[in-house]
């Protein structure tokens, strides 16, 4: 086993990369999953605490219509995925949030549902936003089949043979979720009501457990339909190759709805980013890396190189990035193969020799040998949701100093320029979802959401010189209520410096997919495939052992497990 890392830096900023380096959208749009990612935290805890999984109920007909209950017994508690499988005509299948029907719908029930619970959920979960769930439900989700793969896999298995792995590799999943709602949405339990439970205290654990169980349910469903079809033909279906099943993840389409989260949760984003940066600093602080750890990262680079070769995207910017990452991995393999130096020297070299994709992959990769020792850092990734009170006794002079320290990038922007305020974040009346409009082309400026902190804090900064240095900001806030949110923001970021994206979030050239990828990387997503500048597809849990196969061995570094189509 590799050497234990240094203790967490306990909030000290020394040794960390600076927020001005890390919190740039271009770099955040190159973040990769790491051992701190929430999917990894879930599976690691499931192994550590010996969670037990079972299919408790399976009432599905030959056409794949019905319901199922899949349980996770975590020790003290049971969580049940209640799945409803539907017969959805092809013309109704849409990934957009305007859809009203799906191939499958799900909720994660807190405990074991009885008949009355199932009846209530059957009336509400299939209609998603049009229904209501309750405090006994933790998430609400839905998924659509991959049109390209589903029928091929069912018919292949029903015909007694395995599906074509090349086709599987191109898609990577049999179903993709189009939303996984949690934390109080549509009547579900708030995160605060479960935050003291160790098994779901880390961020998004209820959502990750939902997706992990959905993946299992989907695997069972495709097998069930193949068996039913074969039985109707008087034949026997093939059993899906376990390696194929493991290699398939759950897809996800994610659009602008997720993007504002990074601006509206600065304390939480700070917790996530600073955890990763603290882990990185702890590893870099080692002066004599264990050769085994060094060799492991070399192996991971070789595996990653094989995986990247299978990635497909039609987005020109991502094509360039993927090609850059592929080249970077060749350089990394050469560098690591030349002999052990130090992690710090390796990262310093990467910053001059690699693209941002390569740099950020390497940051995540050198944490892998120490994954088991990052638990203490991972525990800092959740924060209470309580509101932030303004410190009204802070002086105007102190506030000015904070802005000068944390927001020089915002002050430097010419906000009068049209391209600096080209975009408007707003909420659409049609679907109550976030949208990004063009200020000069659409009548949406009156509906602008407060998602341009740089601009608003620059406004605040411009107002302060008229006030005495020793005046309390309470007086300023009373006289300037329109800037109250900006004042609060500065005080939050002063204590949570990795909570602010140091870029203009309403600029003409801002790429929303960078926001999405940053968040999804912390979930543990893989195969980032932008479909436009505004939405992307990803894969979740690909390579993770299915619940019945979960063990310490199979769980270890599962994102680097290679599927048959990845050179395994």
């Amino acid at each position, binding site marked *: 086993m590799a050497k234990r890392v240094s203790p967490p830096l306990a909030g000290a900023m020394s040794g960390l990369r600076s927020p001005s380096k890390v919190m740039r959208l271009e770099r955040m749009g190159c973040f990769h999953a790491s051992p701190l990612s929430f999917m990894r935290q879930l599976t690691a805890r499931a192994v550590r605490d010996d969670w037990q999984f079972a299919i408790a109920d399976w009432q599905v007909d030959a056409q794949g219509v019905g319901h199922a209950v899949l349980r996770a017994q975590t020790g003290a508690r049971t969580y049940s995925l209640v799945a409803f499988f539907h017969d959805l005509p092809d013309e109704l299948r849409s990934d957009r949030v305007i859809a009203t029907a799906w191939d499958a719908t799900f909720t994660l029930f807190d405990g074991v549902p009885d008949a009355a619970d199932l009846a209530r959920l059957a009336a509400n979960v299939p209609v998603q936003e049009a229904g209501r769930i309750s405090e006994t439900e933790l998430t609400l989700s839905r998924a659509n089949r991959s049109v390209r793969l589903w029928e091929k896999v069912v018919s292949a298995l029903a015909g007694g043979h395995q599906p074509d792995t090349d086709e599987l590799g191109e898609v990577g999943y049999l179903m993709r979720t189009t939303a996984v709602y949690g934390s109080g949405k549509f*009547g579900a*339990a708030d995160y605060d009501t479960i935050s003291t439970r160790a098994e779901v205290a880390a961020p998004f654990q209820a959502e990750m457990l939902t997706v992990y169980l959905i993946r299992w349910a989907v695997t069972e469903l495709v097998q069930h339909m193949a068996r039913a079809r074969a039985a109707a033909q008087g034949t026997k279906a093939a059993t899906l190759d376990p390696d194929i099943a493991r290699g398939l993840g759950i897809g996800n389409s994610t*659009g602008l709805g997720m993007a504002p989260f990074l601006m509206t949760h600065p304390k939480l984003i700070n917790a996530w980013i600073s955890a990763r940066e603290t882990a990185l600093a702890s590893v870099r602080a080692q002066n004599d890396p264990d050769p085994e750890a060094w060799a492991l990262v070399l192996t991971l680079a070789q595996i990653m190189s094989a995986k990247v070769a299978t990635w497909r995207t039609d987005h020109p910017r991502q094509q360039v990035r993927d090609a850059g990452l592929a080249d970077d991995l060749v350089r990394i393999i050469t560098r690591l193969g030349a002999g052990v130096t130090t992690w710090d020297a390796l990262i310093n070299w990467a910053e001059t020799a690699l693209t941002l994709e390569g740099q950020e992959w390497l940051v995540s990769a050198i944490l892998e040998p120490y994954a088991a020792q990052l638990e203490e850092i991972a525990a800092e990734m959740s924060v209470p949701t309580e509101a932030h009170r303004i410190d009204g006794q802070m002086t105007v002079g102190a506030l000015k100093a904070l802005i000068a320290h944390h927001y020089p990038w915002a002050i430097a922007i010419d906000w009068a320029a049209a391209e600096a305020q080209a975009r408007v974040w707003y909420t659409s009346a049609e679907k109550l979802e976030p949208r990004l409009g063009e200020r000069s082309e659409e009548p949406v400026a009156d509906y602008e959401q407060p998602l341009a902190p740089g601009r608003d804090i620059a406004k605040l900064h411009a107002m302060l010189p008229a006030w005495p240095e020793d005046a309390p900001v309470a007086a300023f806030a009373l006289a300037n*209520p329109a800037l109250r949110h900006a004042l609060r923001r500065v005080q939050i970021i002063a204590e949570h410096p990795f909570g602010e994206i140091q870029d203009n979030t309403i600029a003409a050239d801002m790429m929303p997919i960078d926001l999405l990828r940053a968040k999804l990387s912390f979930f543990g997503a893989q195969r980032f495939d932008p479909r436009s500048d505004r939405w992307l597809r990803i894969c979740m849990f690909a390579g993770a052992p299915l619940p019945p196969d979960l063990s310490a061995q199979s769980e270890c570094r599962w994102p680097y497990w290679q599927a048959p189509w990845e050179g395994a």
Partner: protein
Amino acid sequence: MSLTLREMSLSEAGALAFKAARGAGMDWGLAEEARASVTWVNSRGLPGLAALLSVLEAGLKPLPGGGHSPAGVVGLSVLHAGAALSDHGRIPPEGLHLPAVVGAVLMVPFVAHLPGVYSVQWGTSDAAAQVTVRGGAEPCLWCAGSLETDGAARVSITPLADTPTGAPIARSTRAFVHPDQLNRLEGFAAATYAPATEASRARGAGGAD
């Protein structure tokens, strides 16, 4: 009015409060205070959303453009006053007395984060309420009287030497509101939503929106 209360998660109630306050014309920073105050009040089993509705309906005048503004409030609204009190960080020994406050229960969270013990009283000619707050990191509340006072109430916040002897009120994990009050709050919130245009439909938000 339907007598069946609508149950919501606290985060739903807070999000609605934020949007409704903004839709009524409040600045973003004050809308943040509305969200925090309503969430806190609801988490103590008290009628936070109903109180916010009374604030928005009592103090807001339609503007020619179709929006609303809190400019019609006489003096400071409960949220303005609460925010100012919170920013100031202390209550003078002689207490704080406000002549006409709508939605007075929303003042309680601003008092509750101050260290010390305070009495928050409000009343009209018809009803009176009294809340004792032991503020600080783990605030506790003791309530008496009808908390759903209609109209503007005189509010007095005074320091106390001791906490009551009885058990404080229990925390609630859910918010409850009358359906018609919910509809009226959603009406305020709707003012924050941009009507769809052909351009916005065309741009959408991507495959998953």
